[in-house]
C-alpha cells in the first residue's frame, strides 16, 4: 500500500470509529447526564471527561483493531495473509504494496481540511484569550499577600494556560468581608490546583466531533461539576459550606457585572445547583457504575481481541466496496 493511501485509510478508519463513538454518546447522553448528576462532583468530572473523549477513543480502537493482525504479523515476522483474502489490491497491510486509492486520499483530505479549519479557529480563540489575560495582568496589581491579581471591576476568576492566574475584582475587596474573600479565593485556588482549565481545554478538543447540542450539554455539565468540585474544596478549606453558598449569592447579586444583559438560563441553573449542593449535599457512590463500565469496556476489548481477524477482513471488504467499487 502506498504511504499516502495507508495514512488515508488510517484517517478514514479513525473518523469512522469516532463517528460510531459519537453516535453512541449522543444516543445515551440524556440518560447518562441524569444518572451522573447524583455522583460526587469530582467523580462526575472524571466520568464526563471520559464520556466526551469516548468518540476519539473508539476511533483509535477502530484503527488498532483493523490493523491488529498486520501489526501482529509485522512484530513477529510472520507471513501475512493479505493476498489470501479480500478484494485484490486492497488490504490493510503494512508490508504488501498495493495500488493507490485516490478516493481514500480525497475523503481523508476533506476530513483533514475540516479538522485543520476547526483547529485554526480554536487556536485563534486561544491566542485572543491569552492576549486578554496578558492585558488583564498589565492593568492589574499583584497582591503578594493573597497571590492574586487585583483588577478593576467585580470579577473573581482564574484564567490562563499553561499557568493559571487568579484575578480578583477590586470592587469585591472593597465591599466583601475577609471571610467571603477567603471562600472565593479557596474556590479559585482549587481550580488552579486541580488544573481545571487544562481539563476543560482537553475536553473541548475531545468533544469537537460530537453534535453541537450534545457537546454543549456535556460541556455545560462538566463545567458545573468542576465548579461544584471546587465549591466542595472551598467548603472544606473554610470549614463552612454555607459560607461558600453565601459568597456565591453575594457575588451573583452585584449589579455592575459586565455584560449583565447576556443572562442565560444555564448560568442561573448552575447557580441554583451549586447553592443546593452546598446546602443539601446528597451524593451517592459511583463504584457500582465504575464496575459496570469496566466490565463493559473489558468485554468490548476481549471481543475485539477474539474476533480481530474477522473484524480486520470485514473492514477491508467494507472499505474496498466503498473506495474501490
Amino acid at each position: 500500500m502506498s504511504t499516502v493511501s495507508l495514512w488515508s485509510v488510517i484517517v478514514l478508519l479513525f473518523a469512522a470509529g469516532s463517528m460510531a463513538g459519537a453516535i453512541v454518546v449522543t444516543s445515551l447522553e440524556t440518560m447518562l447526564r441524569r444518572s451522573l448528576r447524583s455522583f460526587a462532583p469530582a467523580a462526575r468530572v472524571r466520568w464526563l471527561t471520559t464520556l466526551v473523549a469516548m468518540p476519539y477513543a473508539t476511533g483509535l480502537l477502530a484503527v488498532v483493531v483493523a490493523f491488529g493482525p498486520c501489526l501482529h504479523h509485522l512484530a513477529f515476522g510472520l507471513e501475512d495473509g493479505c493476498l489470501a483474502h479480500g478484494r485484490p489490491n486492497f488490504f490493510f497491510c503494512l508490508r504488501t504494496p498495493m495500488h493507490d486509492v485516490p478516493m481514500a486520499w480525497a475523503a481523508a483530505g476533506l476530513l483533514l481540511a475540516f479538522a485543520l479549519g476547526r483547529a485554526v479557529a480554536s487556536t485563534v480563540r486561544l491566542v485572543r484569550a491569552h492576549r486578554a489575560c496578558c492585558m488583564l495582568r498589565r492593568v492589574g496589581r499583584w497582591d503578594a499577600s493573597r497571590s492574586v491579581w487585583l483588577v478593576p471591576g467585580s470579577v473573581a476568576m482564574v484564567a490562563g494556560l499553561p499557568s493559571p492566574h487568579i484575578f480578583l475584582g477590586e470592587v469585591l475587596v472593597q465591599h466583601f468581608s475577609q471571610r467571603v474573600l477567603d471562600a472565593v479565593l479557596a474556590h479559585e485556588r482549587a481550580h488552579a490546583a486541580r488544573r481545571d482549565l487544562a481539563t476543560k481545554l482537553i475536553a473541548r478538543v475531545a468533544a469537537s466531533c460530537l453534535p453541537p447540542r450534545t457537546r454543549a450539554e456535556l460541556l455545560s455539565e462538566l463545567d458545573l461539576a468542576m465548579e461544584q468540585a471546587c465549591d466542595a474544596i472551598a467548603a472544606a478549606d473554610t470549614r463552612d459550606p454555607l459560607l461558600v453558598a453565601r459568597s456565591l449569592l453575594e457575588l451573583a447579586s452585584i449589579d455592575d457585572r459586565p455584560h449583565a444583559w447576556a443572562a442565560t438560563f444555564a448560568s442561573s441553573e448552575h447557580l441554583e445547583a451549586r447553592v443546593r449542593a452546598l446546602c443539601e449535599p446528597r451524593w451517592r457512590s459511583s463504584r457500582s457504575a465504575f464496575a459496570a463500565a469496566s466490565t463493559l469496556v473489558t468485554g468490548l476489548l476481549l471481543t475485539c481481541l477474539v474476533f480481530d481477524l474477522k473484524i480486520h477482513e470485514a473492514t477491508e471488504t467494507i472499505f474496498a466496496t466503498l473506495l474501490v467499487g
Partner: protein
Amino acid sequence: MLTVPRLGDLEMAVLELAWSAHVIDVKEAHRRLGEPRGITSNTVQSTLERLFRKGLLARERIGHAYRYSPTLSRDEFRAQAAAQAVGELRGAQASGVLAAFVEIAAKADRKNLDRLEAILSRARARR
C-alpha cells in the same frame, strides 16, 4: 467608550510617564525613558505618535514641537482595559481558558436569588 488598543511595553511605559507628568514632549520622554533603555529619540517619537493615533494621547503644537497629554486617567484606562479583557475572556470561555466564581454573564435575577436565599436560611436553621 474608547476601545482600549493592545499596547507594547514601551507604549505602556510612555503612557505611565504621561500619567505621572500630565504633559510630555519628545525630548522629555526620551530623557526619562529612551536614554535609560538605550533607544533613540525617533523611536520615542514614533511611540508617542502611535499612542496619539490610538487615541490614548492628545497633542498640541507649541512652537516646533508637539506636547502630549493623556486622554484617559490611569484609573479610567485600567477600568476600560479590564472590562474589555474580561469581555474577550468571556467570549473565549467556550475554549475553556477561564473559570469564574460566578459565571460572568450571570444576571442577578432577584426572584431566583430570593429563593436561593431561602434555601440557605433553611440550611442554616437546620444546623
